[in-house]
């Protein structure tokens, strides 16, 4: 079970929710449960080959999952997962 924080650009794919809580004992399971619930989100965060897109980072609490075992990182009650997409705005 983990709470996933959804950033503004992706909220259009989660029925405008800014956070979603889904079950799962690993990061992979949590993300699978999330994208099963919101299939449109799946296309946004995974490539056709099922790889996480390289401009969206996933953090388990404050750790980038790329450095803690990616999909296999264990999640526990009370953990927060963040999806952090690359944004470029600043001027125009």
């Amino acid at each position, binding site marked *: 079970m983990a709470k996933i924080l959804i950033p503004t650009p992706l909220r259009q794919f989660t029925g405008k929710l800014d956070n979603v809580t889904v079950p799962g004992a690993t990061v992979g399971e949590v993300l699978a449960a999330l994208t099963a619930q919101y299939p449109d989100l799946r296309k946004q965060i995974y490539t056709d080959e099922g790889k996480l897109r390289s401009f969206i*980072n996933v953090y388990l609490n404050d750790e980038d999952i790329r450095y803690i075992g990616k999909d296999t990182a264990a999640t526990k009650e009370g953990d927060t997962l963040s999806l952090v997409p690359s944004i470029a705005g600043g001027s125009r």
Partner: protein
Amino acid sequence: MSLSKDEILRYSRHLIVPEVGMEGQEKLKAAKVLLVGTGGLGAPLGLYLAAAGVGRIGLVDFDVVDVTNLQRQVIHFTKDVGRPKIESASEKMMAINPYLEIVKHEVALTSENALDIIKDYDMVVDGTDNFPTRYLVNDACVLLNKPNVYGSIFRFEGQSTIFATEGGPCYRCLYPEPPPPGLVPSCAEGGVLGILPGTIGLIQATEAVKLILGIGEPLIGRLMLYDALGMRFRELKLRKNPECPICGDHRTITKLIDYQQFCGMPNREEEPKQEAKVNDAEIEVTEVKEKLDRGDNFVLIDVREPHEYQIASIPGAKLVPLGQIGQRLDEFDKSADIVIHCKSGMRSAKACGILKAAGFEHVRNMKGGILAWSDRVDPSVPKY
């Protein structure tokens, strides 16, 4: 670099802070900071860095002030609309602090000029608005060993950190690749709360000043996320990626590359060709008006969002936001004469692609969107 009597009085509130003092103020005066972009982030950055007494500030911008900038770019005033941003910005900064030296680089930062411009500065503050320039600034800073004080914004959210310090992570460590064009909207497409760049720009200004003074705990190896709606700051760990192609153990990028191509954007030379290719699928706004006036049997679809429809709309257009069109294809006849419009023509081009791929036979994109409609058909329709 010593301070004059007038400067000592001007910076009095700095000088009596022990962590700044005369020594710190002299460091600020000796500092050379390059500000890339004088827009949303650049506006508060420029004003505060000028006021704080950063001695030499370089500005890079080739844009002119547009009336839609004024909602957030507080360095530009209503009277400046139409003027080069670099002139407008430097005028305000000099008015705040005449002891500054401002270096104007009125060019687009490119792979050809970036190293030459950046090399004369101690650090870069990135206030740009697009992925190619962000990767360009990052790579140039890594190659030149200059810290890159980064900030970016979208709607109600912002990110900030410092890249490319000695031993610290870079932008490519955080995001190895940019999103394909169109997947993440820009401020122009997605909108932004006008106050947001003030908050993020001043985080960048704070970090730039701390780096110059050498005080406090710099925002290195940490990504600060700001959510204005929840009024929350969150901090994530940012690690140097050993596999990073420009700052990792096995570097494959040793010079600046073609960033338009890297970000999946057409090369400037190729643009006319692309235009020619889509022309047969386009329709002028005046022709759409004639069709409406004649009472032609055709369907006009508006693929903008409902809140945009409330600002301005074309009578008779059916609202189907781009995000829904894929699921609502059965509402339309595949053999019907269909014209699609949006604000400026980008989203409607995507919608045309979706319909064509689904077997719709007569689909055309209304060139220039409702903005062109306002210009050429009905000036009473407001632009936004």
